[in-house]
């Protein structure tokens, strides 16, 4: 229990450090952090499925897409969501994405393991296909450019102000998701992840648990989408494409699935490598690929699992020394 408190304190301190340090750096770092924070919400939403429920989804970008396209279409067609009504767009983005998840979930939830992976891939591709081809609504391959960010008392065109908005919504999402996974509901999700049959025998409606988790994850994905639209200033099929879903999945695994914060760390590392390293060296994508491959080969529990592994190793070597000490006695 105590170590849990320390972990929470570390996270709070890290968030405070980001909130204080980042606005005082250059605009490149601010933009990079804003992007990473917005995308982190999607990665955390995926972690609820992957890490806490044991459902590896390959279509999480669909919900990002719903939120992002909704924001872009409302803003460019109806000039809606550029004032105080921005908050209405946030709510709508969450609701629409959750609604899509409710539809997709009906099809996907029954499947497990690799089949869940495939069916979410197929559903994600449905969303991508619409974004890519439905020219009259989505602008097709070119996407939609957002001309302005919302203004309501505060002007979000200012990058520091916008950073704080994303930061606050990110922190709220983290808090909500943390509460969720620590709640009895979250505990039963973990139970399903460990052994679904046992949970069924204990009388839990596992289908409903997974379905609700799927919808909640979709809703957070929608929130990430609304923020992403205004962060990037453009919404295109790129945001819904398979590689975006794969990115989110890899970020979660890189940081450590089932930790929420791990996904955030993964997102920062990937965005850092991609946007910062790419300005320095031409081989940055090798670095990214190597990071993925090495993580999966040698760190199945992700970066967040390192302290635990070190502790285990120390315990293991300690035991071996004990054995050595014992050896002469027995022989």
């Amino acid at each position, binding site marked *: 229990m105590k170590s849990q408190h320390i972990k929470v304190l570390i996270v709070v301190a890290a968030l405070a450090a980001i909130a204080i340090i980042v606005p005082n750096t250059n605009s490149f770092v601010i933009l990079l952090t804003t992007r990473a924070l917005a995308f982190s919400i999607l990665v955390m939403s995926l972690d609820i499925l992957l890490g806490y429920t044991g459902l*590896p989804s390959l279509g999480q970008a669909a919900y990002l897409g719903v939120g992002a396209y909704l924001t872009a279409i409302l803003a460019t067609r109806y000039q809606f969501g550029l004032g105080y009504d921005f908050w209405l767009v946030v709510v709508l983005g969450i609701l629409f994405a959750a609604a899509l998840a409710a539809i997709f979930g009906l*099809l996907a939830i029954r499947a497990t393991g*690799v089949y869940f992976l495939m069916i979410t891939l197929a559903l994600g591709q449905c969303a991508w296909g619409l974004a890519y081809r439905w*020219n009259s609504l989505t602008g097709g391959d070119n996407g939609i450019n957002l001309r302005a960010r919302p203004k309501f008392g505060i002007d979000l065109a200012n990058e520091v102000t916008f950073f704080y908005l994303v930061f606050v919504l990110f922190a709220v999402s983290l808090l909500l998701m943390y509460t969720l996974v620590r709640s009895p509901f979250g505990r039963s999700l973990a139970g399903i992840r460990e052994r679904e049959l046992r949970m069924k025998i204990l009388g839990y409606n596992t289908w409903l648990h997974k379905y609700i988790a799927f919808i909640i994850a979709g809703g957070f994905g929608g929130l990430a989408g609304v923020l992403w639209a205004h962060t990037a200033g453009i919404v295109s099929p790129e945001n819904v494409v398979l590689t975006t879903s794969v990115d989110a999945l*890899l970020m979660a695994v890189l940081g450590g699935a089932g930790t929420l914060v791990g996904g955030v760390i993964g997102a920062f590392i990937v965005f850092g490598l991609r946007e910062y390293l790419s300005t320095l060296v031409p081989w940055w994508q090798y670095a*990214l690929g190597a990071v*993925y491959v090495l993580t*999966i080969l040698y760190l199945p529990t992700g970066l967040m699992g390192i302290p635990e592994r070190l502790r285990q190793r120390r315990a293991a070597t300690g035991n071996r020394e004990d054995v050595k000490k014992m050896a002469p006695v027995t022989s």
Partner: protein
Amino acid sequence: MNTQFWLTQAFNGISYGALLFLVGSGLSLIFGVMRIVNLSHGSYFLLGGYVALSVIWTTGSWLLAIPVAALTIAVVGVAMERVFLRPLGFDPLRQVLLTVGFAFLFQQAALDIWTGNNFDINPPDALTKSIVVGGLYLPLYRIFMIGTALVIGVVLWLVMEKTRMGAAVRATVDDAQMARGVGIDTSRISMLIFALGAFLAALGGVIGGAFLGIYPGLDFEMLPIAFAVVIIGGMGSLGGAAIGALVVGLADNFGKALFPEVSYFTLYAPMALILAVKPTGLFGRE
């Protein structure tokens, strides 16, 4: 919208399906034998095309490019399976993620070696002509594609159904544990199937490169379509892959011609529905 339109579209769909069969059958067998969702299968397709380009540039021979490219990628596939996938043991999620990591590495390598330009693989002149059958112009190249897929399909079917090796593969698909129990070396089967899958995907890349082009990003475009083939047809079954390829080829062509705005939706929505109802695909082995 006369008969000619329907016939032309059907012909195009079937020839596209022939190409998809090459990509899908390998993916299907890999999944069937190893339960691995190989997300670098699209990369094999693209790399096959690129290697073929290099061969054509240096030797000028298109005929030589086909086997060289396919074999090269088969070696890449085997190396990946032996060195990285095999040591992971049975852990589907990690294996899937590993294949994605490789897809990204391949993407960057391709960009470095072959630049980001769009290329076309030009087949020999003899195959660029068209023949006229009953008022329909049928490009010889597309007929060649259908022929290749037919030959490969028949050979694969014969090997799978009539040889001891094929029986071992089918046994592994049905129940790997039991197959090991009766003395089948499933590890060797996995290696062979992975090589075969990579070979077929690369072959598809060389042949498809003539009318799809070869360009960065083709790998992740091809991948979900190949999955649609596998899922509609059923995982681990050759006949299923053939039917899946035909369905997807036709659906893709008619979808794009008839309802351009929702054409991809018409492809992937049935795929999701089939998965939801029957996860092993329409003709999958249980």
